[in-house]
């Protein structure tokens, strides 16, 4: 049913159930918002109506109405810019700022903060209210996510991300009145909770209350330490997002510029996590074919996403036999760098510093897991996010947009189209299917685009013919979707051979370490399209055809699944039911 109303005298007709805010958007009338948060392509909507910044005047209604959660009714007459509405908004903002720290200049969300943007938009130049300031301790306990509760404005967007989208359930509104904040049960530190560090809360937080643990300085220090050889790996999803930090169009593929920038920052070698993604496919596909042909321990689950792995360890410990034992590409890269490559260049593992650039905050946690530090030397020493790399490039005065394209160094820089699509939901499975099809058929299969597993849908199912075998596969992204699928498996209602799971909705393109999208999911769609464009443009698109991977097995590892491969490239999971 259509509802007719007027906003600022302009008639508009919208579906019933629409809010005033949505009707205004249709007329391209902007109503300021703060707590309101949507991610359209994942059907995520958070409209708590808690901040009241969006109040408007509705004829015949004595009080102002919050536009984000007031449904339209027939004949409604709305005014968005009366003096009364504007004054109310300014008062609300003034009150929000009365106990908000004013350290914008040094805030991790400086220039990305929606509260700051709002103050600028409303031309708020002096504050009337001087409020008491909250004094919570900062939570820097984890390797991944920093919490500064003094900056929390109780919009509760992080809660929606943590509880509704991811069903991790770590964050909740606690206390009341002035002491109210969003925090884990018992006001615990994040490191002591079941948090999986996906960072979706950091993406959702409009202010500086949630941000990443910053590792830029350790990278600078390593780069300036003459006794160390410092190499870097870049994850697939970074190249299609980093340009946004420099005002480039979303979806630009900036691989070459990024390589040049990393070289200018002083890294001794610039390598690619994509190389290790190809390596992951070699090991994981070997395991897949083995488990499918022997028909045991099915389905096989992917294991590249550390947020998903930690989720499984806490929430479904009885299923920890299911994921592939293959390490993630980041950790495979570290293990190979500190053994094969260190040996090749004659550097001791402790003098080789491996830096990762990841779209992800959980990767910071993953690299610090004790099992990934053989003899006390970490395989991956420092992890920075896409945003942190952009900050470093800016800090070094490098004009990113103007850079010439560089190419990755050899031998850990060579990769294929199968590896680059790891950055999007469905990509890992598609990459595995390309290799599985060739290996099972014993030939170079020409049909390699498995389009059924592509796209933003949270759960995708497909039966694909792989070298004559009908393989039942599923792909899911977002941990809430993963939970649904795993519960189906537990109830015996699902019968798949292989499942890819990524913690973040859409995959790594929407990682917690990516440029802030502020709810504009069209950006994510563009990043995804860019990955498939990059794949299509590469000469080699199957992992097992990567010449440097072939050489690595010849020189060092033997066969996929060999003893040497198992020692370096595989891992085991931990039952974390009780912490």
């Amino acid at each position, binding site marked *: 049913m259509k509802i007719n109303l007027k906003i600022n005298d302009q008639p508009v007709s919208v579906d019933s159930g629409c809010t005033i805010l949505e009707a205004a958007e249709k007329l391209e009338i902007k109503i300021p918002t703060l707590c309101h948060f949507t991610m359209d392509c994942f059907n995520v909507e958070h409209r708590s109506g808690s901040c009241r910044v969006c109040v408007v005047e509705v004829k015949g209604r004595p009080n102002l109405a919050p536009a984000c959660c007031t449904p339209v009714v027939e004949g409604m007459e709305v005014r968005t810019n009366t003096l009364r509405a504007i004054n109310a908004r300014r008062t609300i903002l003034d009150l929000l700022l009365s106990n908000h720290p004013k350290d914008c200049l040094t805030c991790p969300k400086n220039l990305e903060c929606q509260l700051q943007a709002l103050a600028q938009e409303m031309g708020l130049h002096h504050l009337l209210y001087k409020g008491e300031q909250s004094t919570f301790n900062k939570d820097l306990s984890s390797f991944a996510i920093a919490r500064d509760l003094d900056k929390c404005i109780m919009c509760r967007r992080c809660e929606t991300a943590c509880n509704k989208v991811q069903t991790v*359930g770590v964050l*909740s509104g606690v*206390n009341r009145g002035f002491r109210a904040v969003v925090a884990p*049960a*018992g006001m615990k530190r994040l490191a002591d909770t079941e948090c999986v560090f996906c960072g979706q809360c950091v993406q959702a937080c409009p202010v500086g209350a949630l941000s990443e643990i910053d590792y830029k300085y350790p990278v600078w220090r390593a780069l300036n330490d003459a006794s160390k050889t410092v190499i870097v790996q870049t994850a697939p999803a970074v190249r299609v997002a980093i340009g946004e930090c420099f005002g480039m169009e979303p979806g630009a593929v900036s691989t070459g510029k990024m390589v040049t920038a990393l070289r200018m920052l002083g890294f001794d070698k610039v390598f690619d996590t994509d190389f290790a993604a190809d390596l992951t496919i070699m090991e994981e596909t070997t395991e897949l074919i083995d488990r499918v042909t022997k028909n045991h321990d099915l389905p096989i689950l992917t294991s590249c996403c550390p947020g998903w792995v930690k989720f499984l360890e806490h929430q479904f410990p009885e299923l920890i036999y299911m994921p592939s034992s293959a390490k993630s590409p980041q950790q495979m890269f570290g293990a190979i760098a500190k053994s094969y490559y260190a040996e090749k260049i004659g550097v001791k593992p402790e003098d080789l510093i491996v830096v990762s650039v990841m779209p992800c905050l959980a990767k910071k946690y993953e690299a610090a897991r004790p099992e990934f530090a053989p003899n006390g030397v970490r395989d991956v020493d420092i992890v920075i996010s896409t945003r942190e790399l952009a900050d470093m490039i800016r800090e070094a005065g490098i004009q990113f947009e103007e850079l010439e394209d560089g190419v990755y160094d050899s031998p850990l820089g060579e990769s294929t189209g199968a590896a680059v699509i790891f950055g999007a939901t469905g990509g890992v499975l598609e990459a595995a299917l390309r290799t599985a099809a060739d290996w099972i058929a014993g030939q170079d299969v020409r049909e390699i685009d498995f389009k059924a597993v592509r796209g933003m849908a949270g759960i995708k199912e497909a039966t694909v013919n792989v070298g004559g075998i009908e393989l039942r596969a599923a792909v899911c992204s977002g941990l809430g979707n993963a939970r649904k699928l795993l519960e189906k498996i537990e109830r015996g209602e699902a019968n798949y051979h292989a499942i890819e799971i990524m913690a973040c909705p859409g995959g790594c393109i929407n990682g917690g370490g990516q440029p802030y999208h502020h709810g504009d999911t069209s950006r994510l769609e563009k990043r995804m399209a860019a990955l498939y464009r990059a794949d299509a443009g590469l000469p080699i698109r199957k992992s097992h055809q990567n010449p440097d991977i072939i050489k690595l097995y010849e020189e060092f590892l033997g066969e996929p699944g060999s003893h040497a491969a198992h020692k370096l490239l595989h891992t085991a999971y931990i039952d974390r039911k*009780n912490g």
Partner: protein
Amino acid sequence: MSCQCGNATPADRAKFEELGKYISSLPIAENPSRSRGFLIQTLHRAQSMFGYLPEEVQKFVAAELKISPADVYGVISFYSFFTDKPLGRHKINVCTGTACFVKGAGKVLEEFKRRLGVSEGETTADGRFFLGALRCVGACSLAPVVMVDDRVYGNMTAEKVADVLAQIAD
């Protein structure tokens, strides 16, 4: 769902069992999506059994009602009646409702804090006294009012605080 506290005493185990029975008696199955609606009454029952709501109890309730422990803690921390810490033997509650507040409850509360060395909502180190503030006990004509356990003291002043404390036997 078994009890989650590894080192629970037999008495505690019996309480967990009883709480489990109470939760299974609730009509949750009729509307599983509304299980959160049973949280507050469950917490009331749990607190009356355990005296307070320690983490193990919170986790147990969360698991039984299929909601997150953070959510349970959110509710406990919101309502001043619920507590996740053991309370002192004697509960001193200063009314800070409008009438009592206007008549100087703030000064009375401050004096209790000073004498007991605790803040509002805390228990003294020796476990004797819990000091709380609540809003309106319905005895506004006697404002400001203090409740010690079940006894009401009216027309309180900061000077009378020492006397009130002295009257508490153990």
